[in-house]
């Protein structure tokens, strides 16, 4: 199979003060691949995906996104951010803007899309995530699940090639988790390259091509879901899986 590398991380480290959050992460993520990142809290999994679009600056090592290296060059950072969409645990919708405006803002301001085009795009995305009727409302008028779906639509509006999900369902009430996971599943099936930090094992098992298990700033084990569920090698992986399953 001829797979192109979408994200190439080599020996990536990240320090917060004296705390080593990432101690040298090396991983290749291929185009169209869905990677689920697992690990106990504080293991560096969120930090890792936040370094990919430069929300956290890595201290050493290299990160390449579609061949563009993430460094101090503003052009490169801009290019990478235009290719990488991100969905946050706390949704981070803009509360002062309507749902529609939340989605159209970046395409209009960054990509200079005309207003009517941006709105058409936004409406089609809202339809895709199943809430076109909420376009005129404000984020606070929506349920958590709806807000997270808007956040996904907002990220998709920039037409990214890669989507990062940072615990997208952790802040949701249980009955709303499914609607968000459904959208993510649909997205995964459409061929989007995705990296998801999540504890939703059902979802992970269903859509993931590969698991990365993080602990204490290192990738301890990686492999297919079958490998993880049937035959994990490392003790730490076994312990973690026994705790969450």
């Amino acid at each position, binding site marked *: 199979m001829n797979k192109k590398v979408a994200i190439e991380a080599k020996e990536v480290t990240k320090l917060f003060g004296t705390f080593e959050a990432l101690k040298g992460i090396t991983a290749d993520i291929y185009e169209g691949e869905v990677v689920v990142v697992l690990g106990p809290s504080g293991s560096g999994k969120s930090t890792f995906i936040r370094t990919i679009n430069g929300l956290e600056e890595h201290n050493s090592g290299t990160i390449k996104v579609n061949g563009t290296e993430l460094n101090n060059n503003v052009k490169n950072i801009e290019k990478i951010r235009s290719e990488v969409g991100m969905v*946050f645990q706390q949704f981070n919708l803009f509360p002062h803007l309507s749902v529609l405006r939340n989605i159209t803002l970046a395409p209009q301001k960054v990509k200079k899309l005309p207003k009517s085009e941006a709105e058409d795009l936004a409406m089609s995305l809202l339809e895709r995530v199943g809430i076109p009727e909420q376009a005129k409302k404000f984020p606070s008028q929506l349920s958590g699940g709806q807000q997270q779906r808007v956040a996904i639509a907002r990220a998709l509006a920039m037409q990214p090639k890669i989507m990062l999900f940072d615990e997208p369902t952790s802040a949701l009430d249980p009955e709303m988790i499914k609607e968000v996971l459904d959208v993510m599943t649909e997205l995964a099936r459409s061929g989007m390259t995705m990296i998801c930090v999540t504890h939703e094992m059902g979802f992970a098992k269903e859509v993931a091509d590969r698991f990365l298990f993080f602990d204490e700033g290192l990738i301890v084990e990686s492999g297919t879901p079958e490998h993880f569920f049937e035959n994990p090698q490392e003790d730490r992986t076994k312990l973690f899986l026994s705790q969450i399953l």
Partner: protein
Amino acid sequence: MRIVIWIKENLLGSKIDILMTLISAYFIYFIASLFLNFVFTTDWTLIQVNRKILLVGLFPEEQLWRIWTVFSIFSILISATIGYLYKLKLRNSIFYILILIIPFLIFTTMNLLVNVLIILFFSIISYSVFYYLKEKKLKITSRILLLSWLIFLPTLFFILILFGGPKVTLWGGFFVNLILAVIAILAGFPLGVFLALGRASSYQVIKLVSIIFIETFRGAPLIAWLFFAWFVLPNFLPNLFSLNDINLVIRAMIVLSLFSSAYIAEVIRGGLQSIPKGQKEAATALGLNSIQELLFIVLPQALRVVIPAIVSTFIAIFKDTSLVFILGITDLLRIGRLIPEQQQEFYGKSIETLLVVALLFWVVSIVLSQVSRSIEERLNVSK
């Protein structure tokens, strides 16, 4: 009937309620009767005679059209802004009219009434036009409005000064308080925004300069700064920008603007800090650059949070303008003190003039605070 129920529930609910109601009622009666007794038994001719001096000081009679023009433009602009920003509710409008009628009753004579009605007419028209434009969702509306406010300041000076306008030393009365407040607010607000952003900036030099500016101006009382402008500034900066020649009113404007900008900056900084980090991260992740992030995400939210605090700063600035008597400017309060001292027929009648002075300040302050409440209510809808 609702009133009866309200009275029963709130004023006569329990024995303690009844007692409190009786005590307060007597207290209110006592104060009100003293006050009303004074109002209706006093000879108010001194206000009638000094009407013009209280409002505009020694501004020459034949030049008054300049003030009328500025006042008209200002009310038309305000009405347009209100029309653009929100729909007036009937209840609020009645409140404004009731409040604004008080000074008109005191100060408006028949020949002025025509002017006032003309201004009112044009204000209502501009309100309706901008309300209509907003409904049409024309993008140009907000730009026209912003541009008009931007050119308002220079226009104001042109109208007041150019083509043989009276010397600035002749400015006085309530007019001076209003114009000082308007300028301090219009100049201080943008400067305050920049200072707040500067203080939150990651560029250390900008940050340091902003902090020094803010802390210097907040660190000393306004009176001290006015004295500074009066005595020290001319010696301190010999002939630079020919400051010696700059009129005292202008100096007062500069000091008030700088002073208010420092306070506004601190208020806005509080708003900036209340914006969660996630908002910036989301904007960054979407590819917005830092200026776009500021303009579209951070500032709109930060300003919203601090509107009540900003308006109370505005009110404080407006009342502080009465301190310019330090510079020998005959503002409303100064004139209110001078009339009973210098006009023999009204010798010692301080209470009358001071009451009217207080009333004028009160009317403007109460309108401002009501405006801030309306804006808050409106913003809560979208929250």
